[in-house]
C-alpha cells in the first residue's frame, strides 16, 4: 500500500509544483527544497484528500512537510477508514 500511496503523492506534488517526479524524493522538504508556497500547500492537501477519499484533520496539515510524512499520514487515515 505504501508504495502505491507514495507514487500517487509524488504525482500530485509533481502536478501542482511543475517539478519532475524524479526531483521529488521522499525526504525533501516541501517548503525549503521544493519551493512549495502556501497556495500550493493547500492544493496538495486538497488533492490528497480527493485522491484517497480521506479528510486530513486541520491540526495535522502543518505536519505534512515531506513526502514521507504525507505518506505516513495518508496510510494511517486509510487504515482508520477500513
Amino acid at each position, binding site marked *: 500500500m505504501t508504495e502505491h500511496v507514495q507514487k500517487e503523492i509524488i504525482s500530485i506534488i509533481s502536478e501542482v509544483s*511543475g*517539478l*519532475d517526479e524524479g526531483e521529488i524524493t521522499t525526504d525533501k522538504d*516541501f*517548503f525549503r527544497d521544493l519551493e*512549495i*508556497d*502556501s*497556495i*500550493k*500547500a*493547500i*492544493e*496538495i*492537501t*486538497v488533492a490528497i484528500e480527493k485522491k484517497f477519499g480521506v479528510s486530513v484533520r*486541520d*491540526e495535522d*496539515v*502543518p*505536519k*505534512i*512537510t515531506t513526502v514521507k510524512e504525507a505518506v505516513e499520514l495518508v496510510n494511517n487515515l486509510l487504515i482508520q477508514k477500513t
Partner: protein
Amino acid sequence: MSQTDNNLYDAIIIGAGMSGLVCGCYLAQAGMKVLIAEQHHKPGGYCSTFKRKGFTFDAAAHSFGSYREGGNFKTVVNELGLDHRIAIRRYDPADIVVTPNHRISFWNDWGKTIRELQLAFPHELKTKEFISFMADPKPADIAALRNQTFKEVLDRYFTDDKIKTILFCQLFGNGGLPPSLMSAFTGSKIFTEFVVDGGYYPDGGMQALPDTFAQRFTEFGGTLLLSSSVAIITEDRNKVSGVVLKNGTAIRSRCVISNCDARQTYFSLLKGYSLNNRFAEKLNSMKPSLSMFIAYLGIDEFFDALPQPGSTLWFLPHYNIEQMYLSAQNEYETDLSKYLLRVSPSGNTILAMANTSFKNKEYWDKNKQLLLKNFITIIEQTTVPNLSKHLRYQEAASPYTLHSYTLNYQGAAYGWESIKQQFLDPDFRKPTFIDGLYLTGHWTTYAQGLAGVVYLGYDLAKSIIRKDKTARA
C-alpha cells in the same frame, strides 16, 4: 521569413492585465516568442490611469501590497530587473478605518497599530497574537484554514464585534465578501498581502506598473498588440492551435494563455469547441464577485478635512458587514453609505468607491449622475465636510463602465466570488480537457487582487518554462 513564420508564436496571451504582462515578461525573458493581444488601447486592465481636464485618475486599482523583501510582487519586480525603473513608495498609514466610535490607523509599523487597537479594545487579549499569525503565517498553517471561513478565525481571537469589523473591513473592500462567506484562506492571504504589507503606490500613478512591464516585455522580444481584440481561440482535437483576431489575422501557437474572464474564454472565445456539459453547467452556476460604483473627483486644492494623500480611508456607518454585503447585492438600489476614499499622492484627485451589484445598462444610464451627486453628499456628511465647494471635476464609473472598458463579466471587481465552493478549482487555471490552454488573473479562483494576479502570472510562466525545457530535453 514567410508570413506563416511571422504568425507562429511559442505562446499567445489574451489580455494585457497585470497577470498577462507578468507572465509574458517571464516567458519572453526565457527566450520564448510571445505575443500579447489586448483589446483596449493601453495595457493594465483594472490597473490603469486616465486623464480628464488636467486631472489624472487611477481607474480602479489604487495601491498594492506584497512589496516587502520576499513578497511576491517585490520578487517579480526584482527578477525582471525593474526595481530601478519604477519608483514605488509606501504610504503611512496605509489605511485608516473610520466607524461610528473609532478611527484606527493601520501603520507600516505594526507594533504601532497593535498598540492603537489595544488602547481602543483593552478587553481583547489576543490582538497581538492574531496580527502575528496574519503577518507571518507558515504555509502549512494556512493550509489548515482550507475548510474554514474567516468568521471562524476572527471568532477564535476576538469577542467584540467592533474590533472584528474594523479588522475585517479591508477584506470586504478587497474581496467583496462578508466574514461568514469569505474563505479563511483567502481572507488570511488578503490580510497578509494587503493589510499587513499594504500601502504601496508607484510615482506617477498606477499606470506606471503596466507601462513598465509592457516596455520590459517588448525589450525581451515580446510583441504587444494594443486595440487588438481576439475573436476566437482555435483548437484541433482538444489541443489549442492559436487565435484569430477580430481583424481576421490568424496567429498560431500551441500555448494560449487567457488573462480575460473565464466565461468569455470558454463561452465566446472557444465558441467552436463543444464544452462538456458538466463543465458548462459549472461555469453557468459560478457567481461573480461584487462590482463597484466609483467617483472620480478633481479638486482645486488639498484641504484640511481630507485624509493624507496616499492613505486609504474606509468609512463604515455601522458594524454589520453581513448587512453591507446584502445591501451591496441589491439588484434595484445602490447603497453608497459604506465606502473607501482616497486622495491620490499627487494631492489633487479623489477616488471614492462603494461595492454594488451589476444591475443593467439602463439602470446606470438613468441613475449614474444622481448617484454621483448623492455619493458626494454622503461623503460630505460623514468624513469630508465642504467637499463640493472644492470640486473642479466629477465623473463616475458604474459596474457597466467597468465592464465596457475591461470586459470583466458583470464588471466584477475581484473575479469569481471567493466563497468556499468556488475556491481553488484547477479547471479555471489549467483545464484538463484542452491541451495548451491556461488561464491567469483574478478569474482563476486562485487570486486576490494585484498581489494575487502578479503571483499567478509568475507561477504560470515558471510552470510553462519548466515544461518547455522538459519537452525540449
